[in-house]
């Protein structure tokens, strides 16, 4: 790959369905967080979800790997129906990687141990092999030299890249990002976004909650706007940014792109 970035259209999207969500509803007590969410994600798709805070975008992606329970409707990941069955939850979690706003690295383990923990205990990978996989992905996110340090000794951007590598070590087919750059300095945002762009180029299916509109334009092939627990609008990035349909979207875009 000599060109820095391919345009979204050049990246392949297959017809195979990776995630299908149908009429999904969720309540926190009496508060209706998600209303009748319908969403189909094809393999290789890169979706950016944006919206005002409290609109339910984080909750939506957290429902996909069962960190939050939904009360109505169905979620199907790679053909596995998400239910309260622990086997199904395990299967889905081992195929879906996730990165958090605050990285959530394990502070008592070294970078290498952070990356090998799940392969060793969940995938039953021999330690040596797990370490090789971990080093491979640490090289990919460009911090193999930090492998023996502890998370507290790394910068925020480095920690988030480790978190990405840690997820990749489980060889997920889908990656979820929950505001991965919101807790970072502007300089560090770029290094994390570069890592994510690289991942997108390799054809990873990605769902990303973010307000990085540059990233959305460059990488996403669909942008979803949510408000008050509903999907208000979804479109290709160009159309979404240049020609937003609903007034709520227009207001939101004018506010975040205005400065």
């Amino acid at each position: 790959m000599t060109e820095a970035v391919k345009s979204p259209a050049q990246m392949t999207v297959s017809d195979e369905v990776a995630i299908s969500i149908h009429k999904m509803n969720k309540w926190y007590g009496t508060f209706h967080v998600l209303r009748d969410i319908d969403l189909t994600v094809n393999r290789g798709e890169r979706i950016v979800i944006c919206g005002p805070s409290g609109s339910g975008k984080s909750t939506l992606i957290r429902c996909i790997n069962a960190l939050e329970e939904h009360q109505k409707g169905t979620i199907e990941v790679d053909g596995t129906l998400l239910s309260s069955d622990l086997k199904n939850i395990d299967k889905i979690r081992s195929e879906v990687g996730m990165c958090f706003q605050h990285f959530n690295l394990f502070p008592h383990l070294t970078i290498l141990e952070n990356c090998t923990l799940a392969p060793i205990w969940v995938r039953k990978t021999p330690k040596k092999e797990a370490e090789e996989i971990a080093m491979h992905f640490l090289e990919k996110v460009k911090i193999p030299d930090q492998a023996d340090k502890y998370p507290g000794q790394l910068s925020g951007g480095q920690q988030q890249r480790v978190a990405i590598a840690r997820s990749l070590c489980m060889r997920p087919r889908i990656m979820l990002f929950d505001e991965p750059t919101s807790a970072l300095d502007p300089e560090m945002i770029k290094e994390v976004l570069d890592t994510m762009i690289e991942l997108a180029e390799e054809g990873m299916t990605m769902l990303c909650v973010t307000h990085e509109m540059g990233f959305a334009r460059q990488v996403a092939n669909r942008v979803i706007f949510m408000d008050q627990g509903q999907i208000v609008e979804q479109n290709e990035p160009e159309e979404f940014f240049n020609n937003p349909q609903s007034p709520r979207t227009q207001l939101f875009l004018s506010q975040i792109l205005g400065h």
Partner: protein
Amino acid sequence: MTTLTDPPKGAFRPSMLLYDSRYRSLTLQAIAAIVLACCFLYLYSNLAANLRAAGLNISYDFLGNPAGYDINQTLIDYTSQSTNWRAAVVGILNTLLVAFLACVTATVFGVLAGVLRLSPNWLVRKLMAFYVEIFRNIPVLIWIIIIFTIMTAVLPAPSAFRGENASSSMLFDAVAMTNRGVYVPGPYFTRGFGAEGNGALNWLLVIAVLVGSLIATRMVTASADAKQAETGVRPKTLWLNLGIWFVPVIVVLFALGLTWDYPALQGFNFQGGLKIGGPLIALWFALSIYTGAFIAENVRAGIQAVSKGQTEAAAALGLRPRRIMGLVVLPQALRVIIPPLISQYLNITKNSSLAIAVGYADITATLGGITLNQTGRAIECVLLLMLFYLVISLLISAFMNVYNNAMKLKER
């Protein structure tokens, strides 16, 4: 235009001692040290002058004289003809015994209550909150007295076990709970080493076997780790470990001819077996539940200090709840729990001196009580007492700090 130059190196002036940040703290420390030394000097000279006026001198000779009093619960041989030093040692052992027992049970109560206080079950959660609030908000001395009163006033006298229509009976014909203490079967050996085959050597042998088992299980764990590192699959070690713990020690106990000596009513009291005195039980239990309530709060704080994000990240990686607890939450929670736990162990050790309220013969009761009163050597006795508690506390502290340092979080 300004240029940077070295600040002028003015000559040293005495006022800089107070108004220059380089010297100020040194000056203040020197003043404090001098004031402190003067205080000690005054106290010491005052003591020396008063002792001289009273015709007294500091001497530890009294430790070699016969004590002349009896002690109801002793771990080593002791009679009223033994020396004051031996009485002190009996007290030390009794203090260590109750402190050790209370540390163990307080930890068990505390961990259980602390974990259960976070239970999703409303009833369990509230019950544990009730336990914690009741026990830590009432002074431990009152708990000691309450429990001792229950033991002496509610439990039957040995005479109640006598006769055809006895109003009390022994539990399983083996345990007698009386107002003089609890009598349980005592183990002894028939084929062992030493006098009548029942020397201390036998117990050393049993302990040696247990230590051997401990080392063996460590080796089993290490080999399981190695196997997992190599193949990825961790072999099941539960049954093997249980076997290693139980089989050798049972074989040894059998070979030594372990027999139980059951307590039996003779005359006015029970004879034989092992007597656990009422004061010991009251002190042990009170210290355990009281300190357990504090430890419960430490444990709860420790678990809650691990952010929810840690559990979520581990769950998102596909780890099961048991593994999340063992691999992610507990290692981090322990770091928060251990430092206050050290303080609680120190509190137990020092609070055990409240033994004097129920007549348990700890070091404060023997050396600091009867010996002090009978010999009049107050200064020497109190100095020795202070030294003992200081040494024990520092030892516990040092031991726990070594553990704490081994678990510490590495940052930058």
